[in-house]
């Protein structure tokens, strides 16, 4: 039994490295593939083993998905906000440090979240019942806080929020398959790459030095991340990206710790969505939906197996992240960055055509244009998250 479980986790970790490092190949895609193959696979493996492959992949993914978003500027949907501080540090030769900050965030938040599990098992059902009717109003308050915090130009922040919001509303309600991919890749990925191309950016030699930050501050931020991530992972419509906005709109967080925050959030989100599946029987993200399809009823024993697997996977993924980031740090200054930008932009365009057809391409072009405005007007790019926040707010208020 245990050997089978470890084998499943190893397979999951391998798949997680694949999805984590390749922009555009999302865990939902692989989970769906596993699910569609499950009638065949279930002849050889038990449902638990298949589910654990997905658990392994999902957790590994949350540790490694910051690597492409920091080094290549091509983010995964949950990591759109790491691009900005991460890219800045890359330009200072601190790409390795930036990834390590997100990994430390992931690891510490995982430990916090798991030690809080007994409490969460009791609290989640209660808080869920109280909060589920007020999510819309909470989101309105967050939006106001987000726009008021903008120092450069509140008008542009407002315009960006609503333009991207209306655009998001249109795209998410359209028939386009995988609408999030072209939407977010344009807003946060390609637009950043185009600015680097225009500025003739050269990536400096990367230093391999571990972050020297105060661990007190790190623990504080991790606790904030654990708390917000926990809250957002069982409420409908809120994911790690929204959680990052919520957390950063209520506390002042420095660039370095922002990376700890976003790194931690995606991991907490994933781990707590397993707990939410058990306590309130609600699947909150693609991978967990598939897990709930494979294992119809999750009991406490299964949950404990999931969570202890998450610890093993997290520890392995941390070491993998250290190793892989070193390779990236050595390779990236040697690569012709202009060429790399062009390759990644073409790759995203191609993937858009494959995943979301010709309409997706139109979405990509519009969202890229929108994504260029913040850099040109030097306002915060996070207002573009309106594309997700506005549709969700309206969904809950109307």
């Amino acid at each position, binding site marked *: *039994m*245990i050997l089978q*479980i*470890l084998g499943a986790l190893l397979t999951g970790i391998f798949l997680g490295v694949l999805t984590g490092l390749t922009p555009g190949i999302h865990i939902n895609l692989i989970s769906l593939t596993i699910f569609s193959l499950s009638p065949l696979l*279930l002849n050889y493996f*038990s*449902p638990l083993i298949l589910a654990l492959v997905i658990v392994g992949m999902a957790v590994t993914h949350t540790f490694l998905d910051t690597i492409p978003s920091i080094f290549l500027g091509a983010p995964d949907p949950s990591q759109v906000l790491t691009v900005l501080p991460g890219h800045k540090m890359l330009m200072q030769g601190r790409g390795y440090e930036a990834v390590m900050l997100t990994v*430390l965030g992931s*690891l510490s938040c995982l*430990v916090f979240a798991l030690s809080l599990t007994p409490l969460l098992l009791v609290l989640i059902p209660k808080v869920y019942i109280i909060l589920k009717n007020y999510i819309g109003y909470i989101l309105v308050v967050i939006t106001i806080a987000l726009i008021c915090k903008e120092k450069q130009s509140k008008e542009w922040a407002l315009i960006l929020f609503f333009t991207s919001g209306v655009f998001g509303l249109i795209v998410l309600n359209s028939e386009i398959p995988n609408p999030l991919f072209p939407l977010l890749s344009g807003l946060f990925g390609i637009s950043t790459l185009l600015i680097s191309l225009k500025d003739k950016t050269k990536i400096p030699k990367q230093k391999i030095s*571990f*972050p020297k930050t105060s*661990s007190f501050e790190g623990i504080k931020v991790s606790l904030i991340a654990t708390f917000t991530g926990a809250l957002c992972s069982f409420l409908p419509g809120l994911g790690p990206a929204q959680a990052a906005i919520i957390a950063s709109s209520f506390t002042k967080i420095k660039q370095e710790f922002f990376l700890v925050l976003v790194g931690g959030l995606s991991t907490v989100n994933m781990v707590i969505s397993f707990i939410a599946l058990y306590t309130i029987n609600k699947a909150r993200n693609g991978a967990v939906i598939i897990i709930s399809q*494979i*294992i*119809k*009823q999750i*009991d*406490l*024993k299964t949950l*404990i*197996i999931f*969570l*202890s*697997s*998450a*610890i*093993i996977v*997290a*520890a*392995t993924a*941390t*070491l993998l992240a*250290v190793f892989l980031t070193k390779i990236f740090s050595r390779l990236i200054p040697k690569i012709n960055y202009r060429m790399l930008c062009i390759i990644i932009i073409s790759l995203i365009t191609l993937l858009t055509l494959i995943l979301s057809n010709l309409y997706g391409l139109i979405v990509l072009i519009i969202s890229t244009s929108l994504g260029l405005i913040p850099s040109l007007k030097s306002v915060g790019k996070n207002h573009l998250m309106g594309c997700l926040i506005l549709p969700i707010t309206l969904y809950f208020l109307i």
Partner: protein
Amino acid sequence: MQESTIFKISLSLSLIGILILLFATEINNKEVITIEKALNYSLDSKVKIQGEVNSLAETPGIILFSIKENLSQIKVIAFKEEEIALKKGDYVEVTGTIKEYQNEKEIEAESITLL
């Protein structure tokens, strides 16, 4: 923080994880669930149910019966390792694995206890 620190932390975490995993796979004291719920479980999951024996067939090696609780019932098949005396109307607790036989879910029993 140093790189070696994170290495040590990761190593100890994975050891803790494996220990909990070992422990978790060993625990078997399942909660009793309703037959209705058990019928919704996927194949090969382990369940523990209780109910009234309402039909019974026996061969030298196998005992086949169905147990009823409220309106739902499920077939149970057990390979006799030791003699058990069951009769209609008995209340039993069955622990076993959900299997499918001729498009119908049934339980392959590991243990049967008279209540």
